[in-house]
């Protein structure tokens, strides 16, 4: 009986965590991949890992930071892998359904430019703007010092300005 109670509490706790973070983590993944279908796959996997290991992840000081970091790293590796899988799909024939929701054109252009940044700068920018996190929390999610996070944001914005300017002039 006691075990059942604990299990139910753990389950409820995960659901609370999920409800609290899923939209923001999804937005982060959308920004970092510019593809809502891929983003959904990433979010599913990030939360699935949390769910499978909830006893441990739920005990972290900030499981929300953990799931964001997983999603950010998956956005990097999964994007690369899915691109090649997508190429295979094209060869195989079955069409991939269009994402349910497209990003606005200018937003997609901005996030495509962000994806050209060094990965850590891109993640810092996405966390700061999409997730609305202050620098200290960006640093906490990325596991780096506040000064380093600030530097990533600064360099990222500088480079992004240049990339978007190039886009306008070409």
């Amino acid at each position: 009986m006691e075990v059942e109670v604990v299990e139910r509490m753990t389950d409820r706790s995960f659901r609370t965590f999920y409800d609290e973070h899923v939209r923001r983590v999804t937005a982060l993944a959308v920004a970092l991949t510019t593809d809502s279908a891929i983003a959904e796959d990433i979010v599913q996997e990030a939360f699935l890992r949390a769910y499978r290991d909830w006893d441990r992840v739920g005990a972290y000081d900030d499981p929300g930071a953990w799931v964001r970091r997983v999603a950010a790293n998956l956005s990097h590796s999964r994007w690369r892998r899915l691109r090649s899988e997508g190429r295979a799909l094209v060869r195989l024939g079955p069409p991939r359904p269009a994402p349910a929701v497209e990003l606005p054109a200018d937003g997609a252009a901005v996030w495509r430019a962000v994806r050209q940044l060094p990965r850590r700068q891109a993640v810092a920018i996405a966390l700061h703007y999409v997730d609305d996190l202050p620098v200290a929390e960006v640093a906490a999610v990325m596991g780096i010092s506040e000064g380093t996070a600030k530097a990533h944001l600064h360099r990222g914005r500088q480079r992004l300005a240049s990339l978007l300017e190039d886009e306008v002039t070409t």
Partner: protein
Amino acid sequence: MTNELETRLRAAADGARQAAASTDTDALLDRIEGGGRRPAWLAPAVAVASAALVFAVVAVVAGLGTPAPRITDPAGSASPSPADTSPPSPEPTATETSSGSGPVAACSAVGLDPAVVAQPGLPAEVAALRQQIASAAASCDFEALGRLLDPAAFSYSFGVDGDPIGYWRDQEAAGGDYLPMHALRLILDAPHGRWEMASGGGSEYWVWPRLAVMNPEETPRDELDAAIAEVAATQVHTAAEVEEMVYQAGGYLGFRAQIEAVDGQARWVVFIAGD
């Protein structure tokens, strides 16, 4: 441009949030609680990829879990093998398996794919060791990494020696521009190079990325540019950083990993940045 950039970033962030708002989070939660499943549109590609990998799995698995630093070619041959494709790697636990730092998410590589990108042409024992290193790095499994190297004969930082694991743990904990497990996992996906001692001795060295074994003065510009792009594609270093190294400092100074192969055995000997 600064204000304009802020405005565009804020608007782009709104767009991402709106796209996220349309996600059916209840359905997503059902899939998560059901153990997760891949989107239907991925299934055909995954099935084909899985079938293509079956051949590779056996040789790689033969190399997994070997406690000694040296990896023996299960086929007893140093000939190139197609074994270096994605093995059935365990899911990364993303829980800093051996960091020993308590319940704090401190692994820079969490979430990165533990399976390396296929690189035909590697001897089987080298391919197996490369995969083991990548898997351990992806989960910051320092104990596993420790089993894959001989600390007394391993290069990991200039000016210090003897404790690569402690060094990497410290670097991960400190947090900086370059975190070693993240860099290690990603650099192993760059195309490899190979060299051997001019004096012979039977050893050959396999290096990631191949740019690390190129002499800029003897390599055609287009080939150098291609190798620079390969490193940039890993996102360990930016193209601009690597170009600066190669064209201004005279050679690649970034992260590189190296495995020595001799007599059908492989030994991980280097993971270092600098010259």
